[in-house]
């Protein structure tokens, strides 16, 4: 029975990881951009939701869109300030700039929300389903459902619509795409805002499972990075698979070997894979 339970845990963990990584996957695959403030946007997504629930007393499901909107706006601001670097495709500078943004956000959030751990309260987190010796919460079901729906939607938009074609054209060659009348800065802005919004959404869904801290950003993203590298950089389907894979690994390794060294073990695996197949992982 413990196997089934861990399978369920892995499924939920994995869909959470995949949800958090979705924005990054699109950003990287479609725009070839990086955002090292991703973890801080996750942190903010959770804290903005917590803040409006505490201060304005709004219910959990209202706090979700508020948080998504706030973080999306922040993402728009960040991207707007980086437009020149983005158009130059100056990845080194972009990495450092977003790292700097992340550090600013960590400091700002600590001042705004305080240094104490908080809980984002979702009513679904308290509703547990127990059947045949296994259990899970309705929040878990929500996370899994959202992950599947969002991944399917993103895949469809990228591969089957005109917007997707535009995004893919920009990823291929931004200058050429501009010649064909595509407004590249606008598309980049849209992708970045999408990234910020999805990570905020992921945060509001996943964060109720654990306490939240304003300092969690830098460590929170580690699994996102692994998923992106493992899933074949920028591949939407690959990220979903890698998310589930890592989720299963975390659940089983944590239960049967050692919970403290789960990330280390997963990372060791990624390192070995990278040294064996460095280019096979990257799409280009």
């Amino acid at each position: 029975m413990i196997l089934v339970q861990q399978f369920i845990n892995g499924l939920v963990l994995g869909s959470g990881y995949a949800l958090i990584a979705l924005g990054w996957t699109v950003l990287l695959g479609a725009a070839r951009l990086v955002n090292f403030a991703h973890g801080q946007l996750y942190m903010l997504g959770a804290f903005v939701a917590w803040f409006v629930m505490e201060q304005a007393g709004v219910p959990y499901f209202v706090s979700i869109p508020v948080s998504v909107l706030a973080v999306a706006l922040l993402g728009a601001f960040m991207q707007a300030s980086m437009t020149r670097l983005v158009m130059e495709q100056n990845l080194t500078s972009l990495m450092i700039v977003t790292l700097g943004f992340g550090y600013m956000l960590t400091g700002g959030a600590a001042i705004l929300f305080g240094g104490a751990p908080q809980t984002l309260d979702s009513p679904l987190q308290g509703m547990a389903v127990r059947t045949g010796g296994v259990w899970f919460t309705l929040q878990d079901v929500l996370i899994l459902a959202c992950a599947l729906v969002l991944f399917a939607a993103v895949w469809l938009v990228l591969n089957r619509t005109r917007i997707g074609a535009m995004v893919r054209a920009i990823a291929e060659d931004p200058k050429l795409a501009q010649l064909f009348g595509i407004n590249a800065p606008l598309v980049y802005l849209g992708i970045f805002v999408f990234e910020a919004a999805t990570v905020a959404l992921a945060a509001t869904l996943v964060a109720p499972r654990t306490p939240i801290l304003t300092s969690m950003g830098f460590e929170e993203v580690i699994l996102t990075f692994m998923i992106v590298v493992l899933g074949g950089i920028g591949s939407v389907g690959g990220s979903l698979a890698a998310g589930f894979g890592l989720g299963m690994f975390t659940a089983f390794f944590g239960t049967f070997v050692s919970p403290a060294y789960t990330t280390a073990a997963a990372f060791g695996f990624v390192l070995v894979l990278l040294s064996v197949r460095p280019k096979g992982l990257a799409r280009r």
Partner: protein
Amino acid sequence: MKDRRERSFRAARAALPFATLALLFFVPEIAGGGSIVYSTCVTIAIFAVMAYGADAILSYLGEVSLGHTIFWAGGGYAAALLSTRLAWDGWLTALAAVVVGVSLAAILGLATLRTREFVFSLVTYAAAIVAFEIVFNWQFLGGSDGVVGIPLLTLTSPVGDFTGGSNEELWPVAYALLALSILFIHRFRRSRLGQEALMAQMNPDLAMGLGVNIQKVRLMVFVLSAVPTALAGWLYAFQRAYVGPDMFEAYFLVFMLTAIILPGRRVLFGPVLGTAIVIVQQTFFSIGGDGDKIILGTLLVLVLIVWPSGLIGAFRFALRRLHR
């Protein structure tokens, strides 16, 4: 006549770095001495040495290493564990710090040998977080409490024994380490390896055409870059008499990058200038820990967005304008 003047001008220019370096030794005294001045100067020297390691990667290889906190902590933990448990002295612990730093860098360097750009950064970053997790959970390394009760730094030599009891006493050691790091980078810039690294960054195709083994160059630079950072961690352990998992904090990472970027990349004295600016702000003009985080992050973002060549670049630009 003109030729001679030109030659003496060049000689003066070549001597300038060494003169500046010699002058740096007297900075604490010129600044008025006192324990706070000495502790600030020692901290600046240590942090600058730490940043010089990352500088070799960022300025000359053109990559962003987010794993240098591993070598920083590696040096610190080597000093802490060996001095408290085996009573090793300063020289031996320094040697151990270098060995630990170089070994860790060789492993990480080999694993990331063929990764570039953000994949390289991602993997080094992930490595740092994983190293943190291991150190935090492994009781043998002190676990989450770290290692306390590090003895005073002692260095025995034929001319006399040295003990670093206060920051004033530590200053000559910190200065020597800083001077060595700057000379190291100075030498590296002119070395074949440094030139090849720069070429591999600017024009990889040309480098390969000229027979440069890019992977070997990258690995060598990465391994070498761990040496100053590990030695900085070594001295930091003795200055604080304590090491802990906090040496992995993102603060040090952002600090290194800011110290390099703020004055401008590929400037010999850049990292020490950048370090001095940030440490002086945090020591004398602090607006609280979280506020200082905002300042540090903002500096980094602003320089890269507004003026990527940094303070020195802006200074040179202004000079050229005035000259016209």
